[in-house]
């Protein structure tokens, strides 16, 4: 089981406040591939990602990452997390941000310049992060996730607010990483990004409503574009929900 999957989530329950967010979630993420985590905002994408990188308090269930319990000490060198809002230090330059994270991870010195070049920010390396545009900020955050050469990279909406050209560039880099054997879990609510993934998890209201591939998604729903496919799946899911509720009601004789 551990050989071909990088993340195994089993019977995960998470409570946020009084609301039960996940009620026995099961997910498996294959190794060395790009898995897209898609769904409307508020559906639980961030909570799932936080559970995988080990910063989410969970109620019960197991999350196994690269063969270890999520959040365990050995994983802190092997798993990288890019949070949703570009979490870099505003009052430091790009290079200073990366040097700091690099030092924490024990990354080699040249890794800093390499990842800055990888995200196309070499020209601005000595600018303060506060002076950068939103898109550049997200790229700094991404570079910070890549500086330690992780085996699993979890990125929460890394392309939000980026223009199409940059988005294409970043997805090119994700592909490059995957080809080097890195596992990527990337969330998005832009459905056309789904087509760039190897595997797709569609989430809605704290449940995985489809675990498929881009081709499978289109073939299954008969839709022409991923937006329509996603809407079709949601409709189907809603229908099923109504059905189970109705059948439950019939069973109890209400």
């Amino acid at each position, binding site marked *: 089981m551990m050989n071909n999957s990088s993340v195994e989530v089993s019977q995960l329950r998470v409570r946020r406040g009084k609301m039960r967010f996940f009620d026995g979630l099961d997910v498996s993420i294959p190794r060395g591939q790009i898995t897209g985590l898609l769904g409307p905002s508020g559906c639980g994408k961030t909570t799932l990602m936080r559970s995988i990188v080990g910063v989410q308090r969970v109620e019960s269930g197991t999350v196994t990452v690269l063969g270890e319990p999520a959040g365990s000490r050995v994983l802190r060198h092997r798993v990288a*997390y890019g*949070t949703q809002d570009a979490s870099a230090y505003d009052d430091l330059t790009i290079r200073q941000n990366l040097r*700091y994270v690099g030092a924490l991870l024990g990354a080699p010195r040249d890794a800093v310049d390499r990842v800055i070049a990888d995200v196309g920010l070499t020209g601005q390396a000595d600018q303060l992060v506060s002076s950068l545009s939103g898109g550049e900020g997200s790229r700094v955050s991404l570079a910070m996730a890549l500086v330690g050469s992780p085996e699993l990279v979890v990125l929460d909406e890394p392309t939000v607010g980026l223009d199409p050209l940059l988005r294409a560039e970043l997805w090119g880099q994700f592909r490059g990483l995957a080809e080097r054997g890195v596992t990527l879990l990337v969330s998005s609510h832009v459905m056309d990004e789904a087509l760039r993934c190897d595997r797709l998890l569609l989430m809605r209201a704290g449940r995985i409503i489809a675990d498929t591939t881009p081709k499978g998604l289109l073939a299954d729903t008969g839709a022409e574009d991923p937006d329509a496919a996603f809407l079709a799946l949601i409709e189907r899911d809603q229908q099923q929900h109504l059905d189970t509720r109705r059948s439950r009601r019939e069973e109890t004789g209400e």
Partner: protein
Amino acid sequence: MNVIRLFATAGRVLSQLRHDPRSIALMLIAPSLLVGLFAWLFSDQEGVFDQFGGPILALFPFIVMFLITSITTLRERRSGTLERLMTTPLAKSDFILGYALAFGLMALLQAVITVSFAVFVCGLETDGPLWQLGLVAVVDALLGTALGLLASAFAQTEFQAVQFMPLLVFPQIILGGLFMPRDQMPDVLHAISDWLPLSYAIDTINAVSAGEEGWDVFGPLLIVVAFMLGALVLASLTLRRRTP
């Protein structure tokens, strides 16, 4: 604990400060200005500044560092950078000590400037050696840093963090022995003041001013250090890798 990560964190905090020259200026100069104001206020009354100048030296670094630390660490907790750090190998103690080290260095600079200003410009006279005054100022600033780190854990916004000052700092000033010698206070208040770290800081300063030596100076100072270490330990316990 890992020395490299601790120093990397302290270095990072100092680089952040370096990009904010106005804060550095406020941190280094504000206490001197306040000491100067005090000296001016009592300039016509012989000996009053010598009596209050010392305790004032203990207060301002404490207040300034409390504010700066609680707000900076709160910013880190809220901006998502702390969450990112919690996924890296950085230990919680390295994070807290990194902050304490960086602000401790600033406190040292601040103490040198403030004590020099009080003595050479305002003419503060003490019977004890100057370096001891400086040492108390540094320890007080560190106590402010440690309590600030702890307070930031209980604040959700910068606004709340600032409100902690009247709650945590003012009672210590009022009961610390600056306005009234502690042994003349009502019994209950005297007993409370025995549990407040700033009381011991002011005791130390008074001992230095009076030219006392040995245990009379370093006894109360050690108590302040113990409070500071306790606050640092509590602060690192309030950091959580997993949050709701």
